């Protein structure tokens, strides 16, 4: 596909008018605030903004020396890895089954994909109701059948389990769709040839299908990490609110907490800049990968 047109309309003021709305929004609500965040990240100011000092990178030094910030980094890494791996695993399993069955595939597909429509915050409300301390159904069954004491407001491991389940539940549909599309694009002749050579379904999956899906898997890994980093704010806020004792305080939630509740503007701005660096690197990875994918 051509990257450029060969012919153009004559240039006048029209193209500027056409891009103007998008540019205005971009400048006012994206560039300016991002610039502000960078500027503020190098300032030291009190909560009222009355005493401002330019301190270069001191805020960042302080940030990376703060054990609570580093703990939030670890929490985010653990959380996003759990969400990505479980979401990809379940998505792949369901997609492989859906690709194999001859009857009902269409119906299965509809039933699997619709949770994508549910807001992350609503997903969190649904799951925290099931796992509500004392009242929840899962809490009751865990107690009655296994004598297990469940209270995600007290135990950090349980809180993490809850937010991972709620975040993954909604994302399975996405992984499922991309794997299904990937599976359907694998030529039947390949798997049939292997079958004739005596490879069973499990062996075929491990040696042919899964390697061919590796670009999809890698792409989904990046997408899921981005999702877990940024879009799960609603999950955290509607269920654990970062607790107990910051056990589920992911980076995005900490920026919000420190800025809006702690009123630590410089610290929050420095955290925003670190997050920007993370998004930029993830986007670059994603685009480099897509460029390679175009060549096949």
């Amino acid at each position, binding site marked *: *596909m051509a990257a450029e047109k060969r012919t153009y309309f004559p240039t006048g003021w029209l193209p500027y008018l056409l891009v103007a709305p*998008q540019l205005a*929004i*971009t400048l006012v609500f994206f560039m*300016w605030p991002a610039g502000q965040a960078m500027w503020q990240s190098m300032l030291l100011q009190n909560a009222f903004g009355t005493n401002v000092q330019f301190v270069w990178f001191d805020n960042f030094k302080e940030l990376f020396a703060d054990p609570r910030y580093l703990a939030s980094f670890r929490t985010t890494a653990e959380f996003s890895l759990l969400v990505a791996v479980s979401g990809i695993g379940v998505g792949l*399993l369901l997609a492989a089954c859906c690709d194999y069955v001859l009857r009902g595939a269409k119906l299965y597909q509809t039933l699997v994909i619709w949770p994508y429509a549910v807001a992350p*915050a609503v997903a969190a409300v649904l799951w925290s109701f099931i796992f509500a301390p004392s009242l929840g159904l899962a809490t009751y069954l865990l107690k009655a059948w296994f004598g297990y004491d469940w209270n995600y407001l007290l135990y950090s491991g349980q809180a993490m389990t809850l937010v991972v389940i709620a975040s993954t539940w909604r994302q399975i549909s*996405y992984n499922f769709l991309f794997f299904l599309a990937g599976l359907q694009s694998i030529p039947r002749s390949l798997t049939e040839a292997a079958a004739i050579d005596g490879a069973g379904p499990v062996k075929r999956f491990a040696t042919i299908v899964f390697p061919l899906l590796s670009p999809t898997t890698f792409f989904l890994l990046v997408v899921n990490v981005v999702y877990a980093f940024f879009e799960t704010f609603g999950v955290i806020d509607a269920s654990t609110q970062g607790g107990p004792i910051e056990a589920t305080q992911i980076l995005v939630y900490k920026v919000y907490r420190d800025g809006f509740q702690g009123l630590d503007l410089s610290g929050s701005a420095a955290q925003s800049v670190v997050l920007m660096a993370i998004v930029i690197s993830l986007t670059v990875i994603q685009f480099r990968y897509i460029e390679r994918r175009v060549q096949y």
Partner: protein
Amino acid sequence: MVENRRALNLFCHVVLIAGIVAILFPVWFTFVASTHTADRMREVPLPLLPGGHLWENYVTVLTHGVAGASTAPVSRMMLNSLVMALAITIGKIIISILSAYAIVYFRFPLRMFFFWMIFITLMLPVEVRIFPTYKVVSDLHMVDTYEGLVLPLIASATATFLFRQFFLTIPDSLMEAARMDGAGPMRFFWDVVLPLSRTNIAALFVILFIYGWNQYLWPLLITTQEHMYTVVIGIKRMIPSGDAAADWNLVMATAMLAMLPPALVVILMEKWFVKGLIEQEK
């Protein structure tokens, strides 16, 4: 396949059914909760089959809201969500299709600069610029307004790329023919490009509507008054912190209502949804 493995086929059906039951269970449980009385929802174990209070619960939340937590009726919140979702969707589509058209069909100074500037918005999700963006909106006096809810979310690099990719596949000869017939750029846009973009617009519409309806962080910051809450924010505000006695039947009725519009859009427009989701990433 050459072999006929009934066992494997059966296994796949079992896995799929088990997966779907697990995926649907929270929604079933929520639905059941929304059909009981508040008192029944405080007794352990909670019911697994629907009760007889569906109608009154839904009428209560739609007309009165949930007492104690928020006085705004859920119908008002649904309206706010609908306005926000539609404005974001339509706004994003309009400004993206226009800027993509300019970038593909004109060659003007600063063209690539503009293109890269739009590209960079991809790397600046609202989550990483929360505080300064809030500051801009409050300086513009747009807190608690629809403009404040919608405008900061309306720029879209992905939609612009999608339209750009698509425009590049439209044969050049169409444009040459149109120019030969004396059609100007806007005439060509209305009569040729826009009708050809219909399927892309439909696919984007589904994806962006879900995106808009499900917004959380931004409305949380920008809406301080109950009459401006979106339904997703409303639910969150209905849950008292901790395990205090919420009217779970009403909260869950609200959750069902919050899920309904985007779920219907996905189910009824599944074909466009799948197309939009898969192409958005290219």
